């Protein structure tokens, strides 16, 4: 109740002058809650959520009409939305997989764990590598040509080598997932360092910072916005190459689920796997974005000001 009131008060303020929004200091908890509540009401009052619903409705309508009503030739083999959704939500699914079967969560969990491990590895290696690539021209001269030569090789082309190199089925999949993430993270981090205005580096030296301190106080935080853009791309491509890996080997995982449902002609299950991939992929991306905004308060607050610069 209190939240609603303060959100409303905030709204009145803002309609008078937009600059008064950040008056609530995001430092304290109450202020932050107020801001969140305010954003939510603001969002609900804007046309955006309703346009989003219309978008989804159009998409589902198109799917429904082409498959179930008009039965167009190309779409004849495809399961329609009603089939998929009723299968997905059914306690007693025809093909044995729905939100009620533990197996479904086993697939999600296995895929999610692989992505998480690969993403963390890629971040732990890619961010430092990218920072050094951007920071030291000599290091870049050594490393970057090799990096650029390896980068265009798609994860699928690595499959045979991954299977030869690593034991079992788990490590090769994590390795394939890692690869694409690693490239995205490294490259964006490097660009992030290169995007830093040279004035910041000079100012730091002027103020008496040593090289190591410039790295810590200027290079790392200055590259942050690009790093987080990179991490969002990275987590997205991780799901890409994960599915490629899982289709080749493994006993669980969403990619495996999609592939086996295809070979066993369980088309609705296949589509359930696809939609689940979309949802889980979106959630991981959003999580990275939230962490990024949290770590870059300065940026969030700058943007809230309407980025007058």
């Amino acid at each position, binding site marked *: 109740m209190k939240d609603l009131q303060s959100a409303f008060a905030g709204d009145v303020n803002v309609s008078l002058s937009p600059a008064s929004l950040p008056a609530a200091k995001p430092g304290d908890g109450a202020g932050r809650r107020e801001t969140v509540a305010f954003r939510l009401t603001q969002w609900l009052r804007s046309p955006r959520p309703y346009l989003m619903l219309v978008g989804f409705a159009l998409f589902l309508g198109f799917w429904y009409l082409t498959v179930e009503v008009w039965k167009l030739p190309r779409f004849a083999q495809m399961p329609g939305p009603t089939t998929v959704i009723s299968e997905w939500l059914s306690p007693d699914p025809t093909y044995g997989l729905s939100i009620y079967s533990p197996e479904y969560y086993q697939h999600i969990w296995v895929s999610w764990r692989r992505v998480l491990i690969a993403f963390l590895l890629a971040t732990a290696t890619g961010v430092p590598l990218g920072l050094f690539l951007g920071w030291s021209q000599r290091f870049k001269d050594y490393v970057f040509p090799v990096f650029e030569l390896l980068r265009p090789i798609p994860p699928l082309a690595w499959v045979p080598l991954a299977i030869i190199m690593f034991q079992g089925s788990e490590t090769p999949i994590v390795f394939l997932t890692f690869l694409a993430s690693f490239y995205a993270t490294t490259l964006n981090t490097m660009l992030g360092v290169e995007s830093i205005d040279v004035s910041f580096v000079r100012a730091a030296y*002027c103020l008496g910072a040593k090289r190591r*301190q410039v790295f810590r106080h200027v290079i790392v935080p200055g590259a942050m916005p690009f790093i987080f853009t990179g991490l969002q791309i990275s987590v997205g491509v991780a799901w890409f190459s994960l599915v490629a890996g899982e289709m080749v080997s493994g006993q669980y995982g969403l990619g495996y689920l999609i592939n086996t449902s295809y070979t066993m002609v369980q088309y609705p299950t296949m589509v359930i796997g696809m939609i689940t991939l979309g949802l889980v992929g979106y959630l991981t991306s959003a999580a990275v974005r939230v962490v990024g905004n949290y770590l870059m308060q300065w940026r969030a607050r700058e943007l809230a000001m309407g980025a007058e610069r």
Partner: protein
Amino acid sequence: MNAEPARARGGPDLAANASAAQERDTGAIRIANVVKIYGSEGAGIRAVDDCTFDVPAGKITVVVGPSGCGKTTLLNAIAGFHSITSGTIYLDDALLCGPGRPQADPGPDRIVVFQNGALFPWKTIIDNVAFGPIVQGRLSKKESFEKARRMLAESGLRNLESNYPGEISSGMRRRVEIARALMNDPKVLLLDEPYRALDSLTKSVMHEALLETFDRNQVTIFFITHDLEEAIFLGHHVVIMTTRPCRPKKIINVDIPHPRDYSILTAKRFREYLDETVEAVHEEALKAFAAGERER
């Protein structure tokens, strides 16, 4: 901690302040026969050519000249961002750069305030201001923050401490940046067209704030600008540069006593200085135009 000079306790007595100005005898820059050629020696662009002049200690020296004439090159050489091709630059008796040492080391005795501002956007105002003494290890964190708070309060920026630079106006940012520089008790402040991007109203407020800061600290100021009115309003000396290659064409000593305020803008003497400057600069601007301006 006791580095605070006596002038901080000077009080409102203007005569005392004026004598403090004479006491300040560090921070003189001597630029002698400096040449800077970009690119290879033969085919390179001669940005600065045989440039000689003095920046006296505890005074404001303003350098004006056509855009792209090499003023910033000179500033960068003093700051230690660029090398020079030949010549020498001294800060007091210490060689900054010269034969066998083409590039000075940047350091907290000469602090640059940049054209577009260089407050770290990822640090709060107080963290920005306290940055210098902390990284130098000169003061403890606690002492640095205390001093930073005092510094901000002195400049009338008391309530901004926990804001980020992106949240305050560009005029405020310039003032914070100057406070950040003064935290280190520099011998020289190097200002590279710091008010260029500001509107004229904000600019006049900034000028008065800068002069006020100067009257308090008597730090040597090396100030680059395009704005002739600004140059005369602020400077003890105005150095007019030739178009590229850059070298002093004329030095005008502005004999209007500090502290100055905006009323002098309409004074007859001020207009005379301005006319003199305009004439000298206009000539160079015409030459630069005829040579085909390559900048911007």
